[in-house]
């Protein structure tokens, strides 16, 4: 018999359940006084570089019904394409930007919302630039393991056309599920990114 590798197995995922907000956004579900504010509520901490934008959307199940108990997190680079993470050794990201947002969604409509900045481009491993994008992670009751996807920007046609991830998608009709059209609301650029868990327009989810 060969030697053993000795690697541990990753802890198995379990659904976040219907009460994920108790742990992740307690103030939102009226458990007040434990934490001063819910983490991920503010991505912009001060005088931030770049274009301020809003990202909104809903998560739909296979019947077309919006989820009202999902939790959506996003992770993105700053306007210069740097991540506010010690793992990014290319430079120091904007200190007024967290890069990470968490939204419990509106209890009535299920709409999530992030006030953030438009990210710059970041390189792929081979050095080629990726199109500006936001990494998205969705958990909810009925989702057994968190779903990873990406939001790309509808006004970045040229960059999207050369993006290494978008270009390798075999079923081209599915590419638009990752691209958020740009609109405006109260003078603020708004990108609408609806996520469909099932059906003919099922969002592309990633195994990364």
């Amino acid at each position, binding site marked *: 018999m060969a030697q053993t590798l*000795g*690697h*541990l*197995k*990753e*802890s*198995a*995922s*379990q*659904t*976040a*359940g*219907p*009460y*994920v907000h*108790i*742990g*992740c956004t*307690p103030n939102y*579900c*009226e*458990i007040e006084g*434990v*934490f001063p504010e819910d*983490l991920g509520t503010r991505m912009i901490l001060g005088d931030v570089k770049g274009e301020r934008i809003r990202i909104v959307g809903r998560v739909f199940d*296979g019947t077309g019904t919006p989820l009202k*108990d999902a939790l959506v*997190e996003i*992770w*993105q680079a700053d306007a210069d394409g740097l*991540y*506010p*993470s*010690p*793992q*990014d*050794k*290319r430079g120091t990201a904007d200190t007024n930007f967290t890069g990470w947002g968490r939204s419990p969604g509106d209890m009535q409509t299920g709409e999530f919302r992030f006030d953030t900045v438009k990210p710059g481009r*970041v390189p792929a491993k081979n050095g080629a630039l*990726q199109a500006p*994008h936001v*990494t998205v*992670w969705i*958990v909810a009751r*009925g989702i*057994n*393991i*968190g779903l*990873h996807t*990406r939001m790309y920007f509808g006004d970045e046609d040229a960059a999207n056309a050369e993006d290494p*991830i978008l270009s390798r*998608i075999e079923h081209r009709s599915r590419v638009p599920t990752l691209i958020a059209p740009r609109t405006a609301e109260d003078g603020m650029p708004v990108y609408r990114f609806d996520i469909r*868990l*099932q059906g003919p327009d*099922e*969002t*592309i*989810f*990633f195994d*990364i």
Partner: protein
Amino acid sequence: MSDGGSYYQRDRLWHPPAYTPGYKTSVTRSPQRALLSFDNSISEMTGPTFGHSIIGELDNDLILNFAKDGEPIGQRIIVHGRVLDENGRGVPNCLVEFWQANAGGRYRHKKESYLAPLDPNFGGCGRTITGEDGSYRFRTIQPGAYPWPNGPNDWRPAHIHFSVFGHAFAQRLITQMYFEGDPMIWKCPIVATIPDREAIERLTAALDMNNTVPMDSRAYKFDIVLRGRRSTLFENRMEGN
């Protein structure tokens, strides 16, 4: 660009699949197309960091962090362990969040309808940041089992939910901790979404008498394993594991 290589591929046969009809809610919430796989880029190999400064004194004490006019009812326990990666190394400075029902099996949530009473002194949420060796610990009340609408008579075993960040968004994980010896574990449709019995055992915390506080609290030990990453030896520069 970043210390170390890509994260090890997730073992999708070890994790629960998306579609698990025994857990009814998954039926319309499970993606049906194949996931798109690609090697990590810096977008997945980085992740948010949280300083110890965000942690309040009582954040890891669910017995006191919502107490109004006394302490919550129930069995006092300490939950402790380490956050490790698949290489067996502790994951330091990562945020761990936890939430749970009270001793009667009732959550403090407006959508919760179980008849067991709320405990005015128990909120049910806490958080901490791991130490240099990946260790964490918190104090709480042992949660109760509770019925839930799935089959006509399905019950959740006593459990605590965990949300863990690690150092990269690729490591992001939500899971649940169960309690050693609980017969309800093997009757639960949500537990049963995990295909491998061994994986379920790894989510079951061991009673740890050596870490009890005599005449006060029992202890359970629960280690959490996040994805590990490759050595960069063959990627861009010489670094050991």
